[in-house]
């Protein structure tokens, strides 16, 4: 049940309250005629009516590129300096329940024995506010991966749009409760009628248990179906960049031979260079092998290794794919 109400006119106050304390307020806004998560400073910038942003908010926890060290080559040595992570207090407003559910997997991965503080420090300083979906499209399939517009996984605060244009607010985690308390003046007591949620239809025949079982059986590896489904993939990697759970990266040096920085950059398992050895050998030489890896990462590695969801059903990969490769077709195929 909702604890508080955020009135329509008070959203501006919430932004001011967050930014006034030095925080950054990230929300879906319009840029180049697309809805994208960006830092906003005014309520008017927030897209009034959207399904979900084209990018996921992962880039505010795991940026597309970030400096991890700087170096200067001196006469007798190298001056190597680690950099401190920039982790401003951040509020992600208007995340969808699907993408918020990606956080468990990201957290497991970035803290698996070795703790990547570039991720954890940003994560610690980020409050995720999800807003239940009142509209969707044909690419939405959260209900086929055991999620729904009502799911609260990964959310610190869950909100429902109300009929009068405001929000019914529910603080879930300690971080969420602290957030609501810290900005108490902005929230009101009371109740309001919530707008109806949009429930995507389940993809016919999809059975996650069956997919998991089929992927555990090694014989699927040479199944000609991979070729049939994934041969049209052009390896552009767009699906991996918009995916909220994809987190593969490269480490490269930028600069000259004398001075520069070491960076962590997003990378994609869909690129042939991703696994290419310097010798010329490539364990995942063909596109269907790379596609198989992506599908297994979502439906086998994340669930089995990190006890979390690898696919949250947001449908971004379906929307951006230039060759209309639809992950739900593969899910159906492996549900047989």
């Amino acid at each position, binding site marked *: 049940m909702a604890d508080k109400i955020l009135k329509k006119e008070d959203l501006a106050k919430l932004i001011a309250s967050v930014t006034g304390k030095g925080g950054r307020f990230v929300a879906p806004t319009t840029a180049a005629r697309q809805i994208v998560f960006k830092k906003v400073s005014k309520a008017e910038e927030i897209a009034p009516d959207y399904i979900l942003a084209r990018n996921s908010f992962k880039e505010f926890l795991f940026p597309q590129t970030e400096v991890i060290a700087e170096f200067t080559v001196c006469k007798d040595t190298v001056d190597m300096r680690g950099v401190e992570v920039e982790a401003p207090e951040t509020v992600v407003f208007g995340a969808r329940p699907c993408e918020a559910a990606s956080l468990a997997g990201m957290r497991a991965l970035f803290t698996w024995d070795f703790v990547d503080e570039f991720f954890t420090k940003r994560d610690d300083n980020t409050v995720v506010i999800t807003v239940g979906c009142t509209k969707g499209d044909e690419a939405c399939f959260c209900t086929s991966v055991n999620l729904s517009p009502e799911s609260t996984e990964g959310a610190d605060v869950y909100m429902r749009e109300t009929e009068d244009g405001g929000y019914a607010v529910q603080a879930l985690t300690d971080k969420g409760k602290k957030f609501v308390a810290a900005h108490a003046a902005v929230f009101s007591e009371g109740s309001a009628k919530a707008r109806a949620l949009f429930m995507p239809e389940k993809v016919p025949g999809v059975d996650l248990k069956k997919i998991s079982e089929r992927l555990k059986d090694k014989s699927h590896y040479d199944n000609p179906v991979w070729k049939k489904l994934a041969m049209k993939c052009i390896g552009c990697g767009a699906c991996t960049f918009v995916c909220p759970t994809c987190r593969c990266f490269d480490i490269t040096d930028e600069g000259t031979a004398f001075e520069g920085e070491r960076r962590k950059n997003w990378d994609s398992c869909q690129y042939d260079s991703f696994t290419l050895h*310097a*010798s010329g050998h490539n364990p995942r030489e063909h596109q269907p092998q790379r596609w198989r890896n992506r599908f297994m990462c979502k439906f086998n590695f994340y669930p089995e290794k990190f006890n979390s969801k690898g696919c949250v059903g947001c449908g971004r990969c379906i929307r951006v794919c230039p060759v209309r490769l639809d992950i739900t077709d593969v899910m159906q195929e492996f549900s047989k």
Partner: protein
Amino acid sequence: MNNIYLPQLVTIEEIRDEAPDVRSFKLVFKDPRLREGFDFKTGQFALYSAFGLGESTFCIASSPTKKGYIQCTFRRSGRVTGGLSQLSVGDTMGFRGPYGNSFPIEEWKGKNIVFVAGGIGLPPVRSVIWNVLDNKADYGNITIVYGAKTVADLVYKDELKAWDEMDGVTLVQTVDPGGETPDWKGKVGFVPTVLEEAAPAAANTVAVTCGPPIMIKFVLNALLKLGFDENSVYTTLENKMKCGVGKCGRCNVGDVYVCKEGPVYTAAEIKRMYNDF
């Protein structure tokens, strides 16, 4: 802040050319505490950086029994190894490690060991060879089967000679057909074939192999054919890595992350893995 991607600095103390495009570095930590205290287990790997060009992954080619320094051996074949090849004695490199699991040599005490290596696959095996030879009384007979494309491509030529002259060590060298020179006294043939003729009896013997992926696959089959127990056969998979710590997502063979759950595997474990390395 604890930055898991920040390398240590090492100085190149010695450079040795092993074969065309193959070079070894003897490295010493700049940090005096690490120079004394750095410890690793045989089979572990590290990421080596050429500043301005990035990091590359190779095993630590020296044995933990040799204190005060580490060695690496690499073939110049890409951007980073190209950069490393330009460095001279006294220059500084980055080193991040040790990472990964290791060869369980303690469990092998009292057993014979056969080492099977191909080309640039000898460096990781060399670490184990010296570790075992430096504790030779603990182990039985040692057989080393080593091959390369040509005579010139054989690495560690001085050490091959030393091993050949050691008591209780049998060294069998081979080159691929066409790779021999007129004065070549070793065998001519591919490593898996030569292994089938030269391997010691499988009973009470552990096998360790490394080489190009295709060679590893054939050697594992040959060893199993010779009657070796799949739990007594070990290999190390040196996949491409960027982070070395289970995050960057490229070294996995199916659901197995080589950097975290490897790089050392038994043939039994390889059999359970996807045929994708």
